[in-house]
C-alpha cells in the first residue's frame, strides 16, 4: 500500500535534507517551479485534495480565490496551520516530528502556487520537539538555497518563519490564527473579507492545515491521477492520517487510503482493551458528533460520515468504552471548550460554562429533569449561525449527540442521584 506521506517518516531519527532528497524530496517543488502558479493550482484542483484541517474544503478551489497576476497585491502570505489543539488529534505532530522536510516542501509548493513571498508556520507552543526539528529543517533548506531569494535561479523568492504560539485552541480557527500572528488577541474575524482577499496584515493569505500541505509534494511529483487513485474506492482522493485514542490496545496513527473504515482503524489498534466494549466514538476530534458501534463500517470520508450525522473532522477517533461515563465524557469535552472560548461572542462565552455547570451537576447526581431540557436548549443556543465562529457549534456536536445516544445514562444520573459508573 502506498504511503506517500509516511513511508519515510521516522520520529526517532527524521530524515535530514540529504536523506529526504535521496528519497525524492523536493522534487515536487522542483516540478512546481517548472510550472506556472496557475498550473500548480490546476494540479491540486485535479487531484481533488480536500483540506485536512477539519472542514474538508477543496484546497485548489480555496487557492483560486487569491488574486493573481500583475494587479495582485505585492505581499501575499501562506500560513501553515499547525496549532493542533483539538482534543484527540495528534496527526500533525507525528508528521512534523517524523518528516519535517515534507511539510516545508508542501508549504513551498503552496506558497509558490499563490505567489506568496512569505510563509509562516504557526505551531502550537507545546510541540517543542517539532519546533526544534522544523527549525533545523528550515535552516537546512535555507542553506541549500531552497528558501530565500531567487530560489534555484527561478526568480521566485520565499521567506519561511516558524511562529510558536502560546497555547489557545481558538488560534486554530484560521482568522483567529491571523490575529494571533499579528500579535493580537486571537478573536476570530468576520468574513467577508475572506483571508484569501484580505488576511494577514490585510493582504491575501491562504491558511492550510499541516497535513493538507504534506500531501502536496506527492501530488506535484506523481500527478493528480496518481493521487486520486490512492483512494480508488472513495469519493475522496489521496491518503489520510487516521488515528485512534481512548481505551484501545494500541492507540496510534496510520496513513490509509481515504475511505478506510473505523473498524479497520480499530483493528489496527488491536481492538478495545481487555474487558472493555466500545460504547461510542467521535470520528474526528472533540468537536464531532458521537457515532455508535453500528457505524463502524461507514467509510471515513467527508460525505459518508456527514450522512451518518457526524463529521470526518481531523480523522482522530476517540473511542468511548463501556466503563467510562458518557455524561462525564461530555462534561470533559464541554469544559475544554468553555475553557478555550475566546470570549468574543455571547452564546459561546457564557453558554458553554452554563452547559458545563449543568453537566457537572448531573454528573455529580445533583441534576434534575429540567436540566435536560435546559441542556438541549443550550444546544440550540450555540448552534451554527448563532455564534461568531465554529468553536461553539463544534462543542455542541458531541453534547447533542451524546444527549441523543446516551439518553439513558443521563436519565440514570438524575434518577439515582449519582453517577452509575462511579460506585
Amino acid at each position, binding site marked *: 500500500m502506498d504511503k506517500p506521506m509516511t513511508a519515510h517518516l521516522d520520529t526517532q531519527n527524521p530524515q535530514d535534507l540529504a536523506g529526504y532528497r535521496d528519497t525524492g524530496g523536493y522534487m515536487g517543488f522542483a516540478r512546481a517551479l517548472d510550472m506556472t502558479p496557475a498550473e500548480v493550482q490546476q494540479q491540486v484542483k485535479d487531484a481533488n485534495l480536500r483540506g485536512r484541517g477539519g472542514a474538508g474544503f477543496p484546497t485548489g478551489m480555496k487557492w483560486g480565490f487569491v488574486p493573481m497576476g500583475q494587479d495582485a497585491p505585492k*505581499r501575499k502570505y501562506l500560513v501553515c496551520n499547525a496549532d*493542533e*489543539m*483539538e*482534543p*484527540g*488529534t*495528534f496527526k500533525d*505532530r507525528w508528521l512534523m516530528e517524523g518528516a519535517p522536510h515534507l511539510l516545508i516542501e508542501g508549504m513551498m509548493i503552496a506558497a509558490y502556487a499563490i505567489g506568496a513571498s512569505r510563509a509562516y508556520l504557526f505551531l*502550537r*507552543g*507545546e*510541540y*517543542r*520537539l517539532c519546533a526544534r526539528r522544523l527549525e533545523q529543517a528550515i535552516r537546512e533548506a535555507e542553506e541549500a538555497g531552497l528558501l530565500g531569494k531567487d530560489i534555484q535561479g527561478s526568480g521566485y523568492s520565499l521567506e519561511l*518563519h516558524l*511562529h*510558536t*504560539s*502560546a*497555547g*489557545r*485552541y481558538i488560534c486554530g480557527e484560521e482568522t483567529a490564527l491571523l490575529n*494571533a*500572528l*499579528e*500579535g*493580537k*488577541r*486571537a478573536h476570530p474575524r468576520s468574513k467577508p473579507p475572506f483571508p484569501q482577499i484580505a488576511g494577514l*496584515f490585510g493582504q491575501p493569505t491562504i491558511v492550510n492545515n499541516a497535513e493538507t500541505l504534506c500531501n502536496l509534494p506527492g501530488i506535484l511529483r506523481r500527478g493528480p491521477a496518481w493521487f486520486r487513485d490512492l483512494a480508488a474506492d472513495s469519493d475522496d482522493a489521496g491518503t489520510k492520517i487516521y*488515528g*485512534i*485514542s*481512548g*481505551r484501545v490496545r494500541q*492507540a*496510534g*496513527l496510520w496513513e490509509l487510503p481515504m475511505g478506510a473504515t473505523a473498524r479497520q482503524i480499530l483493528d489496527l489498534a488491536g481492538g478495545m482493551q481487555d474487558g472493555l466494549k466500545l460504547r461510542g466514538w467521535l470520528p474526528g476530534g*472533540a468537536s464531532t458528533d458521537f457515532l455508535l458501534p453500528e457505524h463502524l463500517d461507514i467509510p471515513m470520508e467527508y460525505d459518508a460520515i456527514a450522512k451518518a450525522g457526524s463529521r470526518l473532522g481531523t480523522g*482522530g477517533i*476517540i*473511542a*468511548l*468504552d463501556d466503563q*467510562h461515563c458518557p455524561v*462525564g*465524557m461530555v462534561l*470533559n*469535552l464541554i469544559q*475544554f471548550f468553555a*475553557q*478555550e472560548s*475566546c470570549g468574543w461572542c455571547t452564546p459561546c462565552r457564557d453558554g458553554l460554562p452554563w452547559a458545563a455547570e449543568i453537566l457537572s451537576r448531573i454528573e455529580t447526581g445533583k441534576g434534575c429533569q429540567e436540566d435536560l431540557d435546559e441542556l438541549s436548549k443550550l444546544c440550540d443556543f450555540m448552534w451554527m449561525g448563532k455564534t461568531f465562529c465554529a468553536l461553539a457549534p463544534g462543542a455542541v456536536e458531541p453534547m447533542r449527540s451524546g444527549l441523543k445516544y446516551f439518553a439513558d445514562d443521563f436519565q440514570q444520573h438524575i434518577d439515582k442521584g449519582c453517577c452509575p459508573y462511579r460506585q
Partner: protein
Amino acid sequence: MKIAIRTLDHTEHLSQEEIQAIEAACAHYEQRPAAAIDALMIVQRRQGWVDDSRLEAVAGLLGMSSAELEGIATFYNHIYRQPVGRHVLHLCNSISCWLCDVDKLADHLRERLQLEFGQTSADGRITLLPNVCLGCCDKAPAMMLDGELIENLSAEKLDEILASLEGGEDG
C-alpha cells in the same frame, strides 16, 4: 503632553540577549507588535514568568501600550503573569487522558504535592497546572514538565519524576 520624568530604559529590565532575540523576532513580521507573543515567551524564560516591569519594557520595545500587551499576555495560556515555581507541571485533562483515568493521577499529584491545581508549593519548587489536550492522545495520560512532553504516565512514573526533581538540581 505629559512629562515623563523617568523614561523607560529597556536595558534595565531586559538583558542584551533578550533584546537581541526580540529584535530578531520583530524582523519576521511586518509590524513590531506582531512579535508580542514571541517577545513575551523570550522574557518568560529568565524567571519563569513575566512581571509588570518586564511587561512594560517589552511593550516599550515593541511600540505598544502596556495595557494592550497585558491584553495579549493574559489571553494566552502559557504566558504567566504570576510567579511560578522553578518547575511547572501541566497535567493534561482533556478527553483521551480522561479516558485513561488521568483524574486518578491528578488526585495522586494533589496528595503527593499537597497542592491544588493553580498553586505553587511553599518552597517555590513546583507549580501545578492543568492543561488542555497536549496532543499525546495515543500515549495518554500525558503531561508537560518545564516545556517538555512526558507520555504514558502512571503513578509510579510520576513519583519517579518528582523524586528526580527533588533529588536533582533543586535538591
